[in-house]
């Protein structure tokens, strides 16, 4: 009887494996000996700092537990003022326009998007209703199109601002699936060219939206889609990438021919992704195995796994730094820059990965708790959710 059961289960296993598309696995693990550094300064902010971005020489940090946004002057690295949310409001993700003139901050409780002008005493110059449970906001490369993912509704919102953001943006929405989870729902979103990628964890699929014609394709591969990204070649999106949190796989969906490839052997629980478009590599944080998995999205192969700190979650492709102001470009790489920053939420560190050599070149002690990051010039700013601080790191001292 046992042998029959074994045969039966083996048959089931084979069948499930046949269901997968092309499967490429690797077990390469890259061992590194990074420099151990300490953040240069800890800036005290309000309770539970989370979303963070840099605009016009200021770091905006969402103090989710204090209903305010702390404003840090990058010249002094001191909090110079605070932007109070309206009653009942809670700040969430913050992003900055590339022209450095405005920042966007989500009020997750009230379901509005705030447009903040750093040059006019950090005033909120517009409030744009977006819907229930706004989670992530992405600004397209044209600096006009803005996309907001919602967790309380089965849609994403597309806004189009004018050049100086003096008028209310036009609003459009796309129907997507639902989001799983209880009190702490999250929904990622990736935007590039005319494409949007939106995971629908409750429905176990991902919406691939073509904003040119409004068509929507449902991508299905593994279970529990979470992090999403768009790989680019020559500045044009070519592949949609989806991390499946319970399958521990990444699905690559070719935008040109519709083919899909499943990658395994990545570690456990893909949670976030940063893309180096020059190297055509995607870096997925694998929270369950304390690694970062590196994927060549052009060759559709796994290049390796990089051990990092404990419980890595958010990853950032750091922008090229210089004396002139540059802004945080989360999830988007810049030519000539090969640094991926990874927040390790359980050991109060960030890992800095040389994305070309695929090794950790520095581990930097910050504060405790969940981390988000932004960059300005030669500085990196890391929010520490448990410590109620923002760590300031001088990137010039990195090896």
């Amino acid at each position, binding site marked *: *009887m*046992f042998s029959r*059961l*074994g045969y*039966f*289960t*083996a048959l*089931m*296993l084979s069948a*499930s*494996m046949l*269901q*997968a598309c092309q*499967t490429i696995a690797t077990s390469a693990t890259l061992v590194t000996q990074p420099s151990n550094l300490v953040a240069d300064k800890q800036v005290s902010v309000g309770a539970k700092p989370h979303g963070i971005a840099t605009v016009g020489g200021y770091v905006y940090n969402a103090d989710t537990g204090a209903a305010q946004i702390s404003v840090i002057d990058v010249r002094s690295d001191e909090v110079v003022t605070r932007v109070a949310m309206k009653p009942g409001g809670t700040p969430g993700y913050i992003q900055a326009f590339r022209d450095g003139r405005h920042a966007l901050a989500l009020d997750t409780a009230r379901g509005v998007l705030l447009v903040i002008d750093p040059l006019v005493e950090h005033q909120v110059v517009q409030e744009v209703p977006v819907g229930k449970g706004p989670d992530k906001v992405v600004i397209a490369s044209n600096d006009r199109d803005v996309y907001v993912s919602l967790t309380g509704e089965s849609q994403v919102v597309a806004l189009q601002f004018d050049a100086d953001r003096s008028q209310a943006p036009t609003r459009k929405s796309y129907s997507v699936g*639902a*989001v*799983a*989870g*209880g*009190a702490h729902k999250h929904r990622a979103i990736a935007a590039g060219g005319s494409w949007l990628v939106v995971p629908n*964890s*409750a*429905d*176990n699929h991902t919406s691939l939206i073509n904003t040119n014609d409004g068509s929507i394709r449902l991508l299905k591969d*593994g*279970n*529990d889609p979470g992090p999403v990204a768009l790989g680019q070649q020559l500045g044009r999106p070519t592949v949609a990438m989806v991390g499946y*949190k*319970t*399958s*521990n*796989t990444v699905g690559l969906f070719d935008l040109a021919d519709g083919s899909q490839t499943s990658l*395994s052997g990545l570690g*456990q*629980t893909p949670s976030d992704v940063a893309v180096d478009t020059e190297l055509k590599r995607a870096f997925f944080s694998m*929270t*369950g*195995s*304390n690694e970062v998995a590196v994927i060549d999205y052009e060759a559709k192969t796994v290049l390796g796994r990089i051990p990092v700190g*404990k*419980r890595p979650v958010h990853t950032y492709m750091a922008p090229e730094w210089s004396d002139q102001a540059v802004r945080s470009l989360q999830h988007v790489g810049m030519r000539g820059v090969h640094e991926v920053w990874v927040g390790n*939420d*359980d050991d109060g560190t960030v890992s800095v990965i040389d994305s070309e050599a695929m090794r950790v070149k520095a581990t930097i002690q910050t504060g405790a708790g*969940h981390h988000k990051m932004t960059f300005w010039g030669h500085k990196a700013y890391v929010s520490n959710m*448990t410590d109620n601080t923002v760590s300031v790191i001088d990137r010039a001292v990195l090896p």
Partner: protein
Amino acid sequence: MMGRGLAFWALLMVGFWFDAMPAEACLGCSCGGGSGTTGDLSATGGLAGLFAEGQRWMIQESLSFRSLSGYANERGEWFPLPVDGQVQALAGTLGLYFFPRPGTSLGIQLPTVGQRLSKATWGSFGALMPTAEPAAQMGLAPGDVLLQGTHVWHQGSNWLFGSWAGLGLPTGYSGDDASRLSGLGTFSVQTGVLALVRWGEAEFVTSVGGQSPIGGAVGVPGASYAGESLMYQVFGNYPLSDRFRVGLTLAGQTGVWRQVAQDGRLPSSRLSIIPGVQWAFGDHQGVRVALATTPPLGLSNTPTDWTLYLLGYQFVR
């Protein structure tokens, strides 16, 4: 005899009244003391004798400690628990069975589940995920009550053939507190057949059945719960003496996961190996100790684990 039995049960019932497993943890079968069905009666050993008399009661109390070791995804690829993670459950069930006449039983199982989640939590489809919670999460909740019945249709000197059926009530917790998950979130039905063959002193029992939820589950959108499943159990036991019996059970399940608020279905399968020993204090009472292991072999969307069971039974007229 009766006094000693009552003292035993008084002792055994103090402090624990647990069993069943969370909906996201595993399917409704194979989680507690065996298949989770009336077929479990076979696990007491001496099944032929179990149905030999009418007009008597049996109280069955089980306590189990379960430790999760990892999970297999839909491709059968196995993954250990997230780094530094622990998922453990202390569960127990009070079972009360009435035998109105020889060959027939009616029963009720009242489970309770306590869990401890540290640096890990339940994901969808039997997966175990890392969690941002800095401290271990502990929860306690009643499980789904199971009503059940068994009837022996035919019986010979060395064999019997019967069937069983059960109705699961959604009394367990199926909300968004992962440490308290203890129920499917919907009614469920179970039914199957069992057969026994006695060969010398040894007993061999086979039970095959199915389980299905009734309607869609109520719970957190996107959460998964046990869907339609085929359950099978092969059990053998052999008496080493008048009071001491050893046994081995293979309990498996092949079916699907379903998700709250959508029609999607995903495959699920598992197989547990359960060696055990049973010691009878007398003709009417005894205890059984078993160690169940779900190895990372041939699984699909299923956690792996080991579970230590302590089960006691007492017949009362």
